């Protein structure tokens, strides 16, 4: 029992004591994961929209493909991105390995299939008259696509929230391409992994608790956004 209680009280302690290292970790986690979700969404939302709306040969295959990609282990994604960003890799010249930028790339790769699959599902279940209705009211094809996205906004925001949840909680890819460098690429999850490996279970629990609080704040903010965006 002290195992959980100790973690909880220490987590509260971390929150109120304004430990700069812990806040640095929180800020980095938030920034990396939000950036990754935005980066992934820039590609995944339009793609999901097109796949969900258009009828074409191979559509079912693509839907199955994206659903399958959800099963990709984070460590494998980390390995692939490591291979790309490594000095000997095709993108080694960017010098991104073991930087927050590398973690953004890896997490974006992780979030991309999830957001795409959820946007496809959101658009497919949407009333198929949205696009034509917008067109008859004078929308350009792009404006009609935007109208579809707006009608599916709750599901699309939920897709983004799910993407955020996936990346801020993953540890395999972040540790592999970020390197868990103190004050630089140490996020919640990599810090928790490290504390646990050191036997500092209470600190690990505390960080986990803190992570939940941050995730709660992000979800409340996105919920607020949904409520306003009518």
């Amino acid at each position, binding site marked *: 029992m002290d195992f959980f209680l100790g973690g909880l009280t220490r987590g509260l302690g971390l929150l109120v004591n304004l430990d700069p290292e812990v806040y640095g970790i929180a800020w980095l986690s938030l*920034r*990396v994961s*939000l*950036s990754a979700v*935005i*980066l992934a969404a820039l590609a995944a939302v339009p793609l999901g929209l097109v796949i969900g709306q258009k009828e074409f040969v191979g559509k079912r295959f693509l839907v199955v493909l994206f659903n399958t990609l959800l099963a990709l282990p984070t460590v494998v994604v980390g390995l692939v991105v490591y291979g790309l960003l*490594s*000095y*000997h890799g095709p993108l080694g010249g*960017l*010098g*991104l*390995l*073991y*930087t*927050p*930028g590398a973690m*953004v790339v890896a997490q974006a790769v992780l979030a991309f299939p999830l957001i795409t699959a959820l946007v496809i599902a959101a658009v497919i279940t949407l009333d198929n008259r949205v696009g034509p209705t917008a067109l008859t009211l004078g929308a350009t094809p792009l404006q009609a696509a935007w109208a579809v996205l707006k009608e599916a906004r709750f599901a699309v925001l939920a897709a983004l929230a799910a993407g955020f949840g996936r990346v801020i909680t993953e540890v395999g890819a972040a540790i592999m391409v970020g*390197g*868990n*460098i*103190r004050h*630089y*690429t140490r996020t919640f999850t990599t810090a928790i992994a*490290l504390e*646990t*490996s*050191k*036997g*500092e*279970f209470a600190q690990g629990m505390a960080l986990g608790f803190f992570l939940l609080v941050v995730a709660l704040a992000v979800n409340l903010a996105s919920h607020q*956004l949904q409520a*306003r*965006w009518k």
Partner: protein
Amino acid sequence: MRLRVLLIVLLTLLLAAPAMAVDRLVLATTTSTANTGLLDVLLPAFTKQSGITVHYIPVGTGKALAIAKRCDADVVIVHAPALEERFVADGYGVDRKPLMHNYFVLVGPPGNPAKVQKSGTVQEALKRIAQAKVPFLSRGDNSGTQVKELSLWKAAGIKPDWPGYREAGRGMGPTLTMADELGAYTLSDIATYRKYLSTGRISLVILADNQDLLKNPYSVILVNPAKCPKVKYDQAKKFEKFLLSAQGQKIIADYEADGKKLFWPVHPSK
């Protein structure tokens, strides 16, 4: 409108993240050096003196060398002499220098079912474990600790192949916890063992310690600039010199965790 402002702020953050790449030296090292907190004392002292930032990547010895082979690190601090020699012989590493050492410990359940004698040598201890066919947990992750463990079996002339001999495939901490729960013997670095013991997570006891055979030597090796042209050899060389300087060695000698000395520098009197 609010949404647009928010998006712009977030996009700026996104663009700022990769731009945060800094000029730094990348040190690939073992979790044992990182977890003790030694590097958090050693590296700031070097940065203060030289103005060079060092970022350390805490992984196992095998992985640290693999990262260095791919030119993704400038310098390594590791503890597996056999792997290190191969790393240098294959041309990946240069300027390999012994840095410090500590001792591995053989630990086992308090009941000591194999009747290992604390006063005996580690070879005798391993023989008793093998004869009693009691559970033994190996790291199984090609870490410096596992490499050491395998060399100890070899030195004792034993092939560890009884059913109770298992591989955890995990780091030192989880392996200790598993060993504790399985009532198994295992080889551990002293720092991690002490940490786990002090938190009350395990009740394993030390059965062999401070013997030459259990010596755990750490080396510093620079990545060969001939293999990796972009490696920061000159800065890495400065770092190595600092580690072996009187100041660096003193920091290592003076470093204590929970009131106990953890590392013995190679040049203690300097």
